């Protein structure tokens, strides 16, 4: 049986995920992905009636149990410098982002 995730498809995923691997790592990860997909294919054995809904959570949220969203109000941050101090590169309290490559859209 051919692997569902071929070396070419794997390279595509790696590019999308912004990763880089040496050949040994790539082989390990591709093998594990294909093994996991074997387990995932068990789900095809489950008969699913059309009315079975998608469950984004197990527990149902009701108006009574849901905390709800906070009001969209501006509040000053208590410790901006503490947060800025975590950034790898800061200049005059601005977080510095490296040059963004320009891609010509077709």
């Amino acid at each position, binding site marked *: 049986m051919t692997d569902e995730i071929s070396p070419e498809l794997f390279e595509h995923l790696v590019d999308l995920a912004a990763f880089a691997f040496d050949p040994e790592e790539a082989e390990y990860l591709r093998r594990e992905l294909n093994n*996991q997909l074997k387990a995932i294919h068990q789900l095809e054995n489950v008969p699913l009636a059309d009315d*079975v809904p998608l469950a984004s959570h*197990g527990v149902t949220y009701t108006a009574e149990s849901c905390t709800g969203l*906070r009001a969209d109000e501006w509040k000053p941050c208590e410790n901006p410098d503490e947060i800025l101090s975590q950034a790898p590169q800061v200049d005059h309290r601005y977080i510095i982002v490296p040059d963004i490559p320009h891609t010509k859209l077709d």
Partner: protein
Amino acid sequence: MALMELTAFETAQKVKTGERSAREVLEAALERIAAVDGRPGTLDYGELTDEDRAKVHAFITLTAEKAIEQAEAVDAKVKAGEEVGPLAGVPLSVKDIFTVKGTPSTAASRILANFTAPYTATAVRRLEAAGAINLGKVNLDEFTYGSSSESSAFQPSTRNPWDTDRVPGGSSGGSTASVAAGEAMLSLGTDTAGSIRQPAAFCGVVGLKPTYGRVSRYGLIAFGSSLDCPGPVAANVRDAALMLGAMAGADPHDSTAAKVPVPDYMASLEKGVKGMRIGLSPDYMRITFPDPETGDLVEQELPEEIKAATLHAAEVLAKMGAEIVEDVPIPNTAYGIPAYFVISRVEAASNLHRYDGVKYGYRTKSDYRDLKEMYRKTRAEGFGLQPKLRILMGMYVSAAQYAEQYYARALRIRSLIRSDFDAAFALEGEYRLDALLTPTTPTTAFKMADVFGDSVLMQYADQLTVPANHAGIPGISLPGGIASDGLPIGVQLLAPDFAEETLFQAGQAYETATADEEWRKIKPEVLR
């Protein structure tokens, strides 16, 4: 009795009355840590020595100075006659997946190794406000991705106090090992597929996964946002109940933390199981494992000793007055892991895209031309293999062309898993269960390195715990015996949404009834 032999409940009582000081208790905890823990997990760990192999290595960061300040503050309050909380002076460890202001919050990953949290998680804040003394951060699988704690970037990884050649389970392995070894009386863990209950079973302690939404996730570094549950690890049921009561409840910082009243768990703890209907399911007495040769999934019977421990628990509960209901069907249990492979990976991939070397955390030290190359190098160097594997799978199964086949199907099967439990617990249904009794794990703790690297086999360690995460219901793992390999066996009780009280009552009844059984007298290897 040595201070670290006391329960958390007894300790708080003694501290409140002034019979013992929080500082004294803290010193006892620090002494125990010095005796059994060995060197803490670090990124640059070098070779493992024989001494390393004999220690527990629960901690990544010990915050002793902060703990001394907290203990002295508790003692000052007691001295001044002021009110102290229900956890006064109780030593607590915290899984390093929670943020604690001013301390490293690493998720056991190189990509967050230099991150100092600017705020404290709600669960930690509430436990500290209740008087708990925060000893520091304990180890885990990187970003919680694993069931053995071996995938941590901070090595030596945690080892099982019952046999240090064995894994403690995971991902809350540091939490359960620290409690089993008597380094902490309580620990805060998280459970996404069984990450509290499975290591609790492996380490012979009590671990509770609360109902999804019972405890705030604010300050929990996210893995599977629809599955993650913070929960207590303790040496006994009473302490777990005490801890949950101190941290549960709604939180304006987490809209999924439910506005459901938190009962007084301690008040109802001794109510017993008389009249409770407790179910047994044949679907939890069969297990599935990948064949080592072909990789095909093969159904097997549960190991005899684990099955016997579960049936023994049923007999004990029956003698205490519970009605045991047999043959309760939970037929979609077998699909818990395959559905989890999809749902958790999609959520993990989404959550891990934020680590990009721009706002916080690790950035590559090597040269880069532009943002894209910086991303690539940072993420390649910062993440270990297990997070990378989860990101890749999550992206694949949620891609536009595959999402219906994989992600949508898994979410619908999650509905089926939920409906199994709804039918078992329905008040007007055929079974009308108060709780379902099952084994916690398909095996006892496995040897270090035996399973690590095989991501499918590792995931199947959670096959008996993960259905509760899909369904959102609460579950507790209780020590249920010692197997012939000398390792603890766990038994699990599951209950309807927000019925943690039932789990504590049944757990307490079981614990009391088995208090004099021979296996309860056996201590972990590191304490003998």
